[in-house]
């Protein structure tokens, strides 16, 4: 009922903030941004997520915190673009497409995590989530920075409202927890994938090239 309304409102508010102004404000972006740094960030986040996920799943309680928990994917609308991809397709992605996919995914994941942060019960969890969201924000900006320095346009906002009107609200507490479970799973998988994405980018676009292009554009 109204939890759905709050959800949509929060997402719309938090997620329609354009990322670009934030980019301009930060001094660390621009010339300093390299693919290596972004790669390192994904590894750091993956490490942080392990602790966060453990704490959060315990908060959700059984069966979500059981290591064997392997639920079927319910036929609900996918909120976040999945990291799962055909191998040949993944290999053939252009640098632009590869970066854009990461940018879009993390923008939306960040949004959903922020909403989670608002709703969650314990102070400890709120603190952890807030810290993680800050790091994740850094990742989004970092990816944006790489894209800009390579001359690629940033994907337009987090594609309208990240909660498409068709997505049904979680009708009960259990299904809401299920949504949270899958959100964390999707985030984890994306971080694993990003490490590989940025490995590939590292080989194809050495940091030196990034710096050169920035100089050419008068940064």
């Amino acid at each position, binding site marked *: 009922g109204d939890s759905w309304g709050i959800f949509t409102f929060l997402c719309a508010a938090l997620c329609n903030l354009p990322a670009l102004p934030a980019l301009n404000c930060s001094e660390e972006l621009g010339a300093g941004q390299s693919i290596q740094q972004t790669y390192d960030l994904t590894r750091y986040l993956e490490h942080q997520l392990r602790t966060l996920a453990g704490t959060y799943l315990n908060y959700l309680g059984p069966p979500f915190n059981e290591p064997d928990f392997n639920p079927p994917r319910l036929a609900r609308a996918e909120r976040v673009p*999945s990291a*799962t991809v055909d191998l040949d397709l993944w290999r053939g992605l252009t640098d632009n497409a590869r970066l854009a996919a990461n940018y879009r995914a993390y923008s939306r994941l960040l949004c959903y995590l922020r909403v989670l942060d608002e709703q969650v019960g314990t102070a400890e969890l709120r603190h952890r989530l807030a810290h993680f969201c800050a790091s994740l924000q850094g990742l989004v900006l970092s990816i944006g920075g790489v894209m800009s320095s390579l001359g690629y346009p940033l994907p337009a906002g987090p594609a309208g409202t990240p909660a498409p009107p068709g997505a049904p609200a979680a009708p009960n507490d259990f299904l809401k927890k299920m949504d949270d479970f899958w959100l964390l799973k999707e985030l*984890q*998988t994306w971080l*694993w994938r990003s490490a*590989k994405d940025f490995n590939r980018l590292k080989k194809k676009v050495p940091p030196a090239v990034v710096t050169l292009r920035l100089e050419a554009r008068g940064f």
Partner: protein
Amino acid sequence: DSHTQYERVGADVTMKCGSMDWDAAVTWTVNGTDIDESHLNGSYLILKNVNLSQSGQYACYEGSSWHLKYQTSLRVGMPPKEPVLMCRSNNYPKGFYCSWHLPTPTYIPNIFNISVIHGTKDMVCEKDATPKNRCHIRYLQLFSTVKYKVTLTVTNPLGKNFTTLTFDEFAIVKPDPPESVVAKPVPNNPRRLEVSWQNPSSWPDPESFPLKFFLRYRPLILDQWQHVELSDGTSHTITDAYAGKEYIIQVAAKDNDIGTWSDWSVAVHATPWTEEPKHLTTEAQITETTSASTSSFMAPPTTKICDKGAVVGSGAVAVCWTAGLVVAAYSVLFI
């Protein structure tokens, strides 16, 4: 007509002589040898608490005519225990393989059936020709959030058992150990050893999926290993080796980001370069000219014996000294 009969170890087996009456006079044989009448109950053959050695060809003949009335092959064995199943991706991102075995033998033929489920999809695990008890799967998709569930069922005439493994795509990544590990002393550097190796040949795409390495080394005389983790490159120079000591060196590999470390590579041995003892060299120089043409004893210059390249053990030093003494002895004879 012939049958095969499977029985459990420890079971009591009663064999009937085909359609013969209970009170008919028959003779039973096992692998051609007559069986003592004490094992018979009428025309039935009673085997109590059978053991493995009682497996064989049993035949029953009518008393007087010596007509073959019944034949059976008795196979004594056991129902299968829970099989041991292991799945691993040593060729990420191509796919993974699963291999299995029984913890204890059953002594009778077993049939293994493996099924792989990914979410709602059934996948086919293609059986390998060799080794047996192994099958492989190609990934259709990468970076999956859904786990893989592998179920192995083993069946034999005496029973059935199974085991299941559930895992994430990333959890089972474990490369093969690095190959062609070579360790060499560095000339004029008594504390260095140069180690180089290659990516395991089973790893299909080290460009996009780079490996990182773990090197461990110790002198043979010590138990403590020293470790170095290397995030790229397939070579490393050890700079803190103890002079003159033989070292044992191993390397392991891991995907940069996911999975677990490989097993350790084959161990290589190397001793750092040592300077030649000065007085031996002088002796060798004198005797080289005199003994070369007259002596049948193959006395190569002392330096050659000691210079053995990759594998130089402390034993070689002893050879040096012995060779030096022998050469010295000959030189005394010829002076």
